[in-house]
Structures are given as structure tokens and as C-alpha cells.
């Protein structure tokens, strides 16, 4: 049985910023209070709508970072240089400010405990956000004292970032893997690895996916999120490696927005 959010019509709601947390030089997490929020599933997103004084509106989608178990809704937003919406969300918002959002949106790129595992998550840059909601959901809904439940849902994250200081949720991922041997996180840095870096230092490729991912014979549930070129290379390579296309779910985000 799968718990589902009731199919009620999605409405625009006024969210209040409770806190703004810097994650990396280019990303911020907004912790929000959203009155009437109906709950969500890990992997879903919201649409954010900003309205200028002259009535001009801009809408963008942002992935939800918080697990369904959290009281506060969290969005992690990357500032895009030419963005219409993200500079406002990352630089001008302060606690107490309000803006419009609607959600939760999307029933395809979602993972709940009954969806099963193993779970193979592949993210690029801020594509980590919906994957982090899945990791957090897995962590907070499986009892810490029940290692068997975790062993049934082993999880691997392959996460591509440009540089070490651009790794979103770096400390939290380290803390989660330190306490949970059934969660593995593998980083690859595409541009500037720190001195002494011994991990991957290249874009995600076939050899890396074959080494880090579960074999196709284990029928892992795969979620890939990141910039369109990364998602397309990863998804087609995984299918080439024998994974069933229906088990490889993707979420591309293009330069004009789309879920990040």
C-alpha cells in the first residue's frame, strides 16, 4: 500500500519565511511555514510565483528538500546569474517575508518506503535537492534501532559537483553516512578538487556508473536529477547497462527553471 496525498486541487498559498540557511556560496535553503500545507512525498516540487508591481508574473519550480516528516517545508534554491526568480529568493528574502507557492506537485519523480530498493540516486549540482528529500525520508522513517529495515533499502548516492565548496548538504551527508552503513555517498568533482583529493575527478561516465551503481540484476530504483545534459547521459548509459527504462526516473532542469 502506498500512502498518497489526496487528489485535491492544488492552490496558491502564501508561504512565510521562517529562516534562510546558507548551504554553499550559491545556494540557500528557505525554511517555510505554509498554512494549510497538505503534506508531500519525497521528490515532489512546488511552483513559486512572484508578481511585480505592474502585474508581471514569473513562475518557477523548485524541488522540496525536506522529508514529509518535517514540520517546516524546506526549499533549497540555487542562484542563477540571469535568473528572474532565484536571485530574489536567495538574496532578498528574510525571515518574516512572504511569497506565493503552490504544491505539492508531481507524482512521478517520487520515492516512498513502499517503493522499495535498492535505491540508486544520481545528482548533479542542485539536482541533489529532491534526492536529499528521499534520503532524509528514508532516514527519518526507518527506526534507528532497526538495522534490518535499512539493510532492505540500501542506498547509494553518486553526486557530481564542480568543486568541494559547492557540494550542497556536504556535512549532513557525511553525518548520515557515518551513522548508517547502508547509505553510501560517492562524490565526483568536475573542476577544482581540493589538495589531496582521492575521489573521482571527472564528469559522470559509464565506468563510474558501473562501479558505483547497483548492477541491473538487482533492479534498483534509480532517480537522476540535474542539468539536462547530465541527466540524459546518465539515463541512457544506465539503460545501456541493462537497467529497465521504467525504473530509471529523471528530472531535468533547464536554464529557464524547472525543478531544481
Amino acid at each position: 500500500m502506498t500512502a498518497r496525498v489526496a487528489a485535491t486541487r492544488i492552490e496558491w498559498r502564501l508561504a512565510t519565511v521562517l529562516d534562510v540557511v546558507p548551504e554553499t556560496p550559491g545556494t540557500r535553503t528557505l525554511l517555510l511555514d505554509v498554512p494549510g500545507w497538505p503534506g508531500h512525498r519525497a521528490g515532489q516540487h512546488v511552483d513559486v510565483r512572484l508578481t511585480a508591481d505592474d502585474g508581471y508574473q514569473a513562475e518557477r519550480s523548485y524541488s522540496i528538500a525536506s522529508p514529509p516528516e518535517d514540520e517546516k517545508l524546506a526549499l533549497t534554491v540555487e542562484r542563477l546569474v540571469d535568473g528572474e526568480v532565484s536571485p530574489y529568493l536567495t538574496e532578498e528574502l528574510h525571515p518574516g517575508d512572504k511569497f506565493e507557492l503552490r504544491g505539492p506537485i508531481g507524482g512521478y519523480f517520487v520515492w516512498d518506503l513502499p517503493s522499495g530498493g535498492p535505491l540508486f540516486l544520481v545528482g548533479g549540482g542542485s539536482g541533489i535537492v529532491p534526492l536529499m528529500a528521499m534520503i532524509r525520508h528514508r532516514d527519518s522513517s526507518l527506526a534507528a534501532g532497526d538495522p534490518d529495515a535499512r539493510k532492505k533499502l540500501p542506498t547509494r548516492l553518486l553526486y557530481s559537483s564542480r568543486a568541494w565548496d559547492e557540494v550542497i548538504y556536504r556535512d549532513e551527508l557525511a553525518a548520515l553516512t557515518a551513522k548508517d552503513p547502508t547509505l553510501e555517498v560517492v562524490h565526483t568533482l568536475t573542476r577544482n578538487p581540493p589538495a589531496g583529493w582521492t575521489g573521482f575527478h571527472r564528469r559522470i561516465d559509464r565506468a563510474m556508473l558501473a562501479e558505483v551503481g547497483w548492477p541491473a540484476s538487482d533492479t534498483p530504483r534509480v532517480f537522476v536529477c540535474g542539468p539536462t545534459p547530465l541527466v540524459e547521459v546518465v539515463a541512457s548509459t544506465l539503460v545501456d547497462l541493462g537497467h529497465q527504462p521504467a525504473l530509471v526516473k529523471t528530472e531535468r532542469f533547464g536554464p529557464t527553471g524547472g525543478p531544481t
Partner: protein
Amino acid sequence: MKKGSRQPKRRTVAADRSADSLRLDGNAAAGLLSEIFAPDLTAGLAKCAGCGTTRAVGALHVYSHGMGMVVRCPGCDGVVLRVARTPTRLWLDARGAVSIVISAGN
């Protein structure tokens, strides 16, 4: 919120961006589709009228434009859905879908 601070900056036309980098998944259409259909359509299965294959709507390709979205089949590139929004109307063209099947009752 401070009055007047809510100013989305207008984007200049990104004409130099290739269509490939603008391609999104069906997930990206979920918000716009929710203005027409109450249940989430992206977890539903769509049968393409062009090539007859069936995929989750969330797995289709989406090209988003100022006025709306074009949803295409990844297999044959045929248009499955078109959704446009004007100041007063929502416009849906679904002739590229033989059927869309969603799970009911949950």
C-alpha cells in the same frame, strides 16, 4: 514582505540556447496540468498517437515556452500534449495522446 521588493527581473530572449538544453521532463508540466485536472497526471500512462508506445507522462519530454508547454514523445518526438495559457484562458490540445490512464480512488 516589503512593498515593491517583489520584482521579478525580465529575462531577455534566450535565443542562443539550444532546444536540447531546454528539454525538461513531464514532471515540469505537472503544475500547469494541475490547473486543468485535479488528480496528478504525470504518474499516469500516456499512449502516443504517433508511435503507439506507452510511457508515464512524467517521462515524456517537455519544452516550456512563455505561453505554455509542448509535451513530446521521447520515442518518436511526436507532440502528445500542448498546453497554452493566455490571460483569460487555458488551452489544451491532447490529440497526440490515444489515452491517458491514471490510478483512481486514492
